[in-house]
C-alpha cells in the first residue's frame, strides 16, 4: 500500500486528487470488484467514491488520511449497493450449488469460488477481510475506516476468515465430487 500523495503547489496539506486518482483508483476499483463481484458496478462505485470524496473534501481534516477516507466511502457505497441487491439475492448454499458445473478446476472457476465465498459473508466481514489481507490496512486503520472499535475488527477478522475458508472449501469439495 503506497503512501498518500499530497499536492505540492496547492494549498498546504490539501489533497492532490488527480495524483491520488492516478495512484490509487485502480487498486480501489479492484477492491470494489472483489467486494461486489461486478466490474461494471465497481467502476461506477469507484467513480462515485472519488466524486463524493472531492465533493466533500472540506470535511477531510487530515489529508494524510485521505486514502483511508476513500476506502471508508467506497466500503459504505459498496454496502449500499449490496443492500439494494439483498432482497432478491439467493441465500447461498454453496457446497452444492456449483458442484456439477465443471469437472475441470480451472483458475477461472477458482476465482469464481473466491468471489462466491467472499460474497457469502456479510458485507462487514467481507470488507474487513479484503482491507486486511488484500489492501494491507492495519486493524486500527480498518477500525477508523469502518467506524468501529479495534475489538470489533479483530472479531470480524476471526469470524470472517473462518466463514470464508469454510465456504471456499465447501465449493472446492463440491467441485471434486
Amino acid at each position, binding site marked *: 500500500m503506497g503512501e498518500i500523495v499530497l499536492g505540492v503547489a496547492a494549498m498546504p496539506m490539501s489533497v492532490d486528487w488527480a495524483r491520488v486518482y492516478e495512484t490509487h483508483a485502480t487498486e480501489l476499483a479492484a477492491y470494489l470488484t472483489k467486494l461486489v463481484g461486478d466490474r461494471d458496478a465497481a467502476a461506477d462505485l469507484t467513480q*462515485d467514491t472519488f466524486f463524493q470524496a472531492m465533493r466533500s473534501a472540506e470535511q477531510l481534516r487530515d489529508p494524510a488520511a485521505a486514502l483511508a477516507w476513500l476506502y471508508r466511502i467506497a466500503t459504505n457505497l459498496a454496502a*449500499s449497493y449490496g443492500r439494494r441487491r439483498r432482497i*432478491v439475492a439467493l441465500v447461498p448454499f454453496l457446497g452444492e450449488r456449483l458442484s456439477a458445473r465443471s469437472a475441470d478446476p480451472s483458475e477461472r472457476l477458482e*476465482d469464481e469460488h473466491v468471489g462466491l465465498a467472499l460474497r457469502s459473508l456479510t458485507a462487514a466481514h467481507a470488507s474487513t477481510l479484503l482491507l486486511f*489481507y488484500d489492501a494491507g490496512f492495519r486493524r486500527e486503520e480498518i477500525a477508523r475506516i469502518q467506524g468501529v472499535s479495534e475489538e470489533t475488527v*479483530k*472479531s470480524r477478522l476471526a469470524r470472517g476468515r473462518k466463514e470464508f475458508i469454510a465456504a471456499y472449501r465447501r465449493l472446492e469439495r463440491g467441485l471434486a465430487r
Partner: protein
Amino acid sequence: MNERHDHDDTLDDEVRGLLRRPVRAPSLPPFAEIAARASRTRRRGPVLVAAALAGLLLLVIGPRLTSFVPASSTSAPTCEPTGSALDGPYDSGPYLWGQLDSVRIDPRSGQLLWTVRLGVRASAPSPASIQARARVLVEGRDLTVVGYELSEPTSRTLATDERVSVEACRQVALALRTVGQLPEGTFSYSVALDKVLRPGGESTTETFTTALACTPTPFTCAPTRATGTAAPSTSPNAILNTSFGVIYEGRGTGSAPDLTPSIRREGGTTPVARLTGNVLNQFLGAVAPDGRQIAYFAQPQSDAWVLYVLDPTAGSQQVPVTTLRDEHPIGAPVWSSDGQQIAFTIADQSIAQGTAPAYTEIRSVDLAQRTVRTVARRSDHSAYQLVGWDKPTGAIGALVISATGTASEYVLVGPLTRSWTLNGDTRMVASPDGRVALVVCESSRGCALRTTTLTDFGNQLDANLEAGLSLGIIGFRPGTSDLALFVGKASAPTTQTVELWSRQAGRRVVLTTDASSLDSAFFRADGSALVVGTRPGNETVVDLRTGQTARLASGQNDPFARTRPVASVRLD
C-alpha cells in the same frame, strides 16, 4: 503496513493467498471527467445549462406502407453502420441500428437540424417502414419541431405521417428541424429516440439516449460521455401493459435528469415522471398496497432527507411529507394496509459515516393529518429495519440490526410489544395483510421456507421442502397469499427457476434462468405479471395468466440498460 494477526498462521496465509489473487479491474474514465462532475455539482452556475431533446421515430416492418423509397434509389448495401457519427451507433434491437450523425444550424433559417441515421440489418424479415415523430425539450421547454426531411438516399421534405420503406442492408438519414430559443453559453443536450418495430405484427419499442455539449459560436456539438449511452427496449404489446409503470433506480451520484430514479410505462422508453434523487440515486421507496401511490426518501439538498409521496395516476407532483435533518433513513418505508399511513425508520447521521448509530427510531406519519409520531426508539447502537405493518392490530414488525451488522432480534412495536431472538442473517418479506415468509438456510441441508405472521412470529410453519435447495424471496403476489421465489437445486446447479407457490395450487415454475446471475424481480402492481431481471437491461416480463414472456428493455445500448427496475405502479 501489514500486521500479522496472532492466530492460525497457516489459515492466515491461505486466506491472504486467496484474497490477493489479482482481478481484472474495470476500466475507469480519466480523472478530468470526475473532476468536472464534482466541479459541476459544487457550483451550479449559469454556465452549465441542462437541455434535453426527446425524439420519437416510429419504425414499422410490415406491408402497410403509404410511401416507398424504391430499393434502387436507396444507398449502397450497408448491413452495419459505417463512417463516423456524432454519437453512436447504437443497437436498436435485432433488426435496427441508429446513430446521431450531426446537429447543425441551418444558416438560412437559423433552425436546428438533428440528423439521425437508421439502418436495417440483413436479418430483418421484411422492409422497415419508418415514420418520424419527435419531441424536443430544452430545459423542460419544448422546442417546436417544424418538419422532417429525408437527407439520404434522396433529399426531400417528408409529408406528415409519411412512411419510408427501407429494405434490409439499407439505411436512411432523417433530419428533424426545430425552432426555439437556446440558452447562451455552453450547454448540453440529451438526445433520445423512441422507435417501434413490428416484425410480423409484433411490435417493439426502442430508445436511445445520448448527451451532447454544444457551443453557440461557432455552433458545434460533441458527445459528453459523462452521462448516458443508448437505450433500446423491446416490448411486445400483447404482454406489456402500458397502464402500469415501472420504477427504475437511478445511476451514480448527482441530480442530472438522466441520473435520478424515474418511472416509465411498461415498454416505454421515456420517463413519465422523474423522482428527486439521493446520494446513490437509489429508489428508497415502497408502492402502496393499492399500487397507486409511492412513498420514497430523496435528498433535494445534500443535507436533508425528505419523505415524498407521489400519485402517478394524478400527475408527476411529488408531495413532501416530512423532512429529516441530521438524521438518515434506513431502508424503504412501509405502507399501512389502508394506504393512510407510512412507517419509516431513521438513525442519526453517524450511520452514513459507517459507524453504529447512537439512536434509531421507528416513526409513522398520518398522510391526512401530516402528523409524525415516534413509535419506538433504541439507543444501544443497533438499527431498526422494517418488515411490515399488521392490519388488524396496527403493530409494526421490525428487525433489530446489531452493531456488527447482523439481525439479532425481531420485534413488534406499537399497540403490541414483543421480541424474538434471531440467529444471524435473516431474509423475510411481509404482505400488506400481515403474512410473513422467511428463508432459513443450513449448510448441511440447504434452505427452508417458513411462513408466519407479523404478530405471531414464533409460530412458524415449515414448508417441508426437499433438501439441497437455494431460495430467494421475491415477494407476495398482490392481493393473494401466493409467494414468488427464486429456487436453485443442488441437482441442477447451472439453472434456477422462478416459481409461484400457492397453498391451493402448489408450486408452479414461471421461468427458468441461468443460475449465474439474478438482479431484480417484482410483481406488476395488480399481480398479473412478474418482472425478472438477470442483469440491468435484461428483464423479462412474464404474464402469469398465459405464461407468455416479453423483454422489458432491449439491450446494452438502452440508456436505462444499467439502471435497475425495482417496482411496479399503476399509471391509469
